[in-house]
């Protein structure tokens, strides 16, 4: 369909003939249609029609376990997004000031974190937070008894791991808008007597609003699909939506119900994505956040 052949509205200025590369477009589209769209549509259809119309949805929404997971996912995702915004903005702000060796090191740390597999990061936080883990060992070294600390298996542990995963995304999305702020504006505000805080509040922050919104939506989209961190750091008592979906299939073989939950999750994600498209060019945002 993207081959561009066929009819064009009259008055089209360019001669219309599909070039070979336009025909080539059909390959990736066919690939996605077969290996992604078709199975996805199949899953939607099964979730809608199996055992009576929308029965799987009723079952999913009646499941208190699922509903609690939805609430947990949304709340933790929101908290992580805010945490990432505050920490990520500080890092991106620091990184876009005059270049110094220590700032180059910080940038290196962010990129390094970005490239290390999520599984390794989940494992390292597990080793740190588990009872008798690194944190309690270190606490013991300085004479604090960490016996009563219960971090592993809590949503706090999940949130820590998630922020660790998401922070580089936020930083990389915020750097271009912060870099685009004209230093002359800051100097002007300064010379007009604005304090540093006021300059930040009235000049820098409003100028980077687009980046903030885009970064928050991206972080939130990534958050609500999390599977690895809740599974390893949250334990069986604190599943996210993705974990409940996995369990429906893995333990109960309940494909229609898992499909219904997946469709609900996807709808939320797509709505957020539509908002992201409205505030910025997704190929830019995602391209920055891709491992480039």
């Amino acid at each position, binding site marked *: 369909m*993207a081959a*561009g052949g066929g009819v064009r509205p009259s008055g089209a200025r360019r001669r219309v003939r599909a070039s*070979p*590369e336009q025909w080539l477009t059909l390959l*990736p*589209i066919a*690939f*996605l249609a077969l*290996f*992604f769209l*078709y*199975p*996805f549509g*199949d*899953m939607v259809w099964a979730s809608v029609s199996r055992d009576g119309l929308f029965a799987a949805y009723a079952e999913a929404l009646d499941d208190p376990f699922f509903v609690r997971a939805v609430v947990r996912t949304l709340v933790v995702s929101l908290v992580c997004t805010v945490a990432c915004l505050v920490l990520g903005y*500080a*890092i991106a*702000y*620091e*990184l876009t000031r005059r270049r110094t060796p*220590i700032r180059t*090191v*910080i940038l290196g*740390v*962010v990129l390094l*974190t970005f*490239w290390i*597999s*999520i*599984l*390794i*990061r989940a*494992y*390292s936080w597990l*080793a*740190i937070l588990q009872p008798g*883990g690194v944190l309690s*060992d*270190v606490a013991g070294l300085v004479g604090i008894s960490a016996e009563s600390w219960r971090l592993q298996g809590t949503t706090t542990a999940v949130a820590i791991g998630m922020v*660790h995963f998401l*922070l580089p995304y936020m930083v990389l999305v915020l750097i271009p808008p912060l870099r685009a702020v004209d*230093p002359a504006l*800051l*100097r002007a*505000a300064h010379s007009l007597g604005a304090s*540093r805080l006021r300059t930040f509040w009235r000049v820098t922050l409003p100028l980077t609003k687009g980046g903030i919104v885009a970064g928050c939506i991206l972080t939130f*989209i990534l958050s609500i*699909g999390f599977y690895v961190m809740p599974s*390893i750091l949250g334990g069986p008592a604190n599943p996210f939506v*993705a974990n409940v979906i996995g369990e429906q299939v893995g333990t109960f073989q309940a*494909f229609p119900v898992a*499909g219904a939950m*997946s469709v609900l999750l*996807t709808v939320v*994600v*797509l709505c957020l994505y539509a908002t992201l498209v409205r505030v910025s060019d997704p190929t830019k945002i*995602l*391209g920055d956040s*891709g*491992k480039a």
Partner: protein
Amino acid sequence: MAPEESGAVARAIAWSTAVLLVVPMVVVVALAVNGSQYVQFQLPPDDVSLKWLREVADSPLWRSALMQSVKVALLSAVLATALGTACALGIRNSRYAGVVQTLMLLPLIVPLIVTALAIYPLWVDLGLLGTTAGLVIGHTVVAMPFAFLTVWSSVGTLDPQLEKAAASLGAGSWQVLRRVTLPLIAPALLASVIVAAAMSFDEIIVSLFIASPQTQTMPVVLWSHLRENLDPTVAAASVFMAAMNLVILFVGIAAGRWAVKRRGAAR
């Protein structure tokens, strides 16, 4: 103080967060070189030993998982790049660009657990379940959006005059594609292969659904070990995987340098 310098609060947050980002990596390495029988953290470790690293390096399970990961990553990276490039080149100037672009990005937007769940029954039907081919196709679906984005950003900088000039000099459209367009975006193709390989190498959720014990990749083996036992081999395996992550990163940086140099030479 110049207003464009950062304040003390921002600096304190930035630096302490950067430290917190690094700490877990340091911990994993420290655990991996710990000589004791248990997962134990001591600074300095009183018994530094490479035995856990050696145990992982010598284990047929970890070795075959690593080989499988490399194989699947390379194949799916090349496939994803080919498909992503075909799409990026085909839709510039097309009025369907927006629609196709959204379509290409879908596997990136949709949570991986949803993709995994959706493709599982199809993989069963097609006999792809548990096969290396099935893993390659699944990883290609996941990696293609990143390949597309990488090539797309470079296609935007293409000078259409060059292709027009080649065509006006009598080059057929295939010849233009092969001799002009593709060489011009070669650095992006390389970057795309690297990004896609990284995505595939780290992919865990789809792999958990569709890999068999014979075809499992490194993250899948790491996952099952993580759930069962926390002996230091997990830390050692993590170090190997992180090393692979870094190899891919440095290949990427070297390729970027090469592209810049090449561009300079072309001028």
